């Protein structure tokens, strides 16, 4: 943005040939224009910074609490930052094994995402290119995603008790996969429909099988869509609470379930709650930071004209 703006120092520079005749008047004129532009930019930046501060504050507060001592947490007026960075709470979480629940979350989120992406992509390809199930199957599939989790979680719990899947990785992974599949299918179908058919046909003529076409043409063309869909799928599994609460006990409890254990009848363990929340937030930051560039679509622009 700053590159487009004239530098402040250029304000008094004469503009054009007539500037030589009346340097003052013209100089003044450009100066006000540039000043107004600078002022507008300044106002916009201030507004942006203020808004960012408002939205970032809860996250800042969450991080700060996790480093505070108990007395600092309950201090009034509140302390804006801890007197020293105190990692005791994290130490306790790791020592007692509470932090392992973050690992559980990682395992179920990662594998359910991988499975949902693989199955969903194949289904989506079939729907997009072979019109499998007629015109409306895709709508019907996505409607499955609209079921409120609370409506299905107890029947599933009973089923899982029967199959012995309660409190197992496989049980949670299967459920997250099933719940995410409609979303993945719907999103990937859209991305695949955007891939020009001629690209696939050209590859078929050039010696590829259908599977090779998917691998060499469709997947690379859908990279951005795949990444964006995978992130949302991962985040759903990562943030889920209700399924994990009902279907896990101790073995594979996720961090969201673990946090609720710190809300006591007598008191709440704010330091643990915030430290655990920090542990749950950091992986999402990392994943998003690494995959951010895939959010920007447009990788396929220029390939096809007409």
């Amino acid at each position, binding site marked *: 943005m700053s590159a487009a703006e004239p530098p402040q120092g250029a304000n008094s520079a004469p503009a054009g040939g007539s500037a030589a005749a009346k340097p003052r008047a013209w100089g003044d004129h450009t100066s006000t224009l540039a000043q107004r532009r600078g002022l507008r930019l300044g106002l916009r930046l201030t507004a942006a910074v203020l808004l960012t501060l408002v939205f970032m504050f809860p996250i800042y507060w969450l991080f700060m609490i996790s480093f505070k001592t108990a007395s600092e947490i309950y201090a009034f007026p509140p302390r804006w930052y801890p007197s020293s960075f105190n990692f005791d709470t994290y130490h306790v979480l790791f020592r007692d094994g509470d932090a392992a629940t973050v690992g559980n979350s990682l395992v179920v989120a990662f594998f359910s995402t991988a499975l949902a992406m693989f199955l969903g992509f194949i289904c989506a390809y079939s729907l997009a290119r072979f019109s499998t199930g007629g015109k409306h199957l895709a709508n019907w599939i996505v409607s499955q995603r609209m079921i409120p989790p609370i409506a299905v979680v107890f029947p599933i719990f009973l089923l899982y008790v029967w199959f012995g899947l309660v409190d197992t990785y496989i049980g949670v992974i299967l459920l997250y996969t099933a719940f995410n599949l409609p979303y993945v299918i719907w999103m990937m179908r859209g991305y695949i429909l955007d891939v020009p058919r001629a690209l696939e046909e050209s590859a078929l003529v050039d010696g590829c099988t259908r599977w090779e076409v998917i691998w060499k043409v469709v997947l*690379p063309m859908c990279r951005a869509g795949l990444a964006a869909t995978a992130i949302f799928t991962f985040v759903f599994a990562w943030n889920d609470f209700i399924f994990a609460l009902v279907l896990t006990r101790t073995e594979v409890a996720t961090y969201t379930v673990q946090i609720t254990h710190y809300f006591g009848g007598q008191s709440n363990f704010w330091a643990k709650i915030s430290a655990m929340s920090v542990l749950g937030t950091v992986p999402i930051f990392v994943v998003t930071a690494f995959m951010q560039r895939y959010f920007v679509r447009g990788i396929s622009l*220029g390939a096809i004209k007409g």
Partner: protein
Amino acid sequence: MAVLRVSALHKYYGSVHAVRGVDLEIPAGEFTVLVGPSGCGKSTLLRTIAGLEDADKGTIEIGGEVVNHLPPRSRDIAMVFQNYALYPYMNVFDNIAFALRSRKTPKEAIEPKVRRAAQMLAIDHLLDRYPRELSGGQLQRVAIGRAIVRSARLYLFDEPLSNLDAQLRDEMRSEIKRLHQELGKTMIYVTHDQVEAMTMADRIVLLRDGVIEQAGPPLDLFERPASRYVAGFLGSPAMSFVDAKVVAAGDGLALRLGDGATLALPARRSANLGNWVEQPVVLGVRPEHLGRANPGERAGLARHSATVELLQPTGSRTYATFSLGGTRAVAELQAHDVSAINEKIELSIDMNRVVLIDPVTNRVIS
């Protein structure tokens, strides 16, 4: 030997009968152009030959082998698509090398082949670029390079020039024709543009509503069209059609037009029209069959006085529109033959070359 033989081919899209019993033989090394208006089935026919569509009835043989059941990759064909179909995530080199790699060509053989194809198309300086960095003409060259890099039995072009501007289209037209002469491969080219068809083809196959209307060398179709449709499709400006009646005039025959004017037919043509006396026919006249009349002209030219209604100078020639038997007709005149509209001129019509059509069957009367 025929490289491609299509027999009694039918293709349906739901209730639409897109290709209706096409028979076609294409000899080795020939440049065949499938031409016709939108929806005539030319692209469908090409895609069926490629294996991108299944044939519903009939057989397709490539090199003597029936390929109906074979997937596109096993038909040993190469194809250039209308929208280039380049992979945006690969540079030009990888795009051209794609077919070679898919067919497991040894690595050391790929580079020289790609470079040779690129040189033929004058794109060897672009090999590191990505499609988004190329102009329309360059994209088209890369798309052609991708097809010719491999030695296929049959090369298919599906309206490859329709996205280019007029000047570039002219340039690529001669480029493709030069490539064909250089490579000597069998090529099938689909277009809706009759100029492309006329200028490029060894043989034109003119399709209409899923059937072949006429096939043959371009000048044969142009000079001896089989039907009113073929006569009207080829040529620009198009042939004018005038209702007329065959009448006896002196020793021979003549055509009487709607406005009462008569045009004497040469003896050679009259001989074949004995059965048509007092019958209605349609007279087909191309702009180049008409010219400004000069005194003392050779036989076979009929004279007609006309008032010029519209002038379209092109520089070397001027097209003059006038009324012939109540129908608008166009004459191709010398640039300075006419100077203004409403000018009365004397035209001569070359009755040896005009086409006479049966108004009932729309077939040309030989």
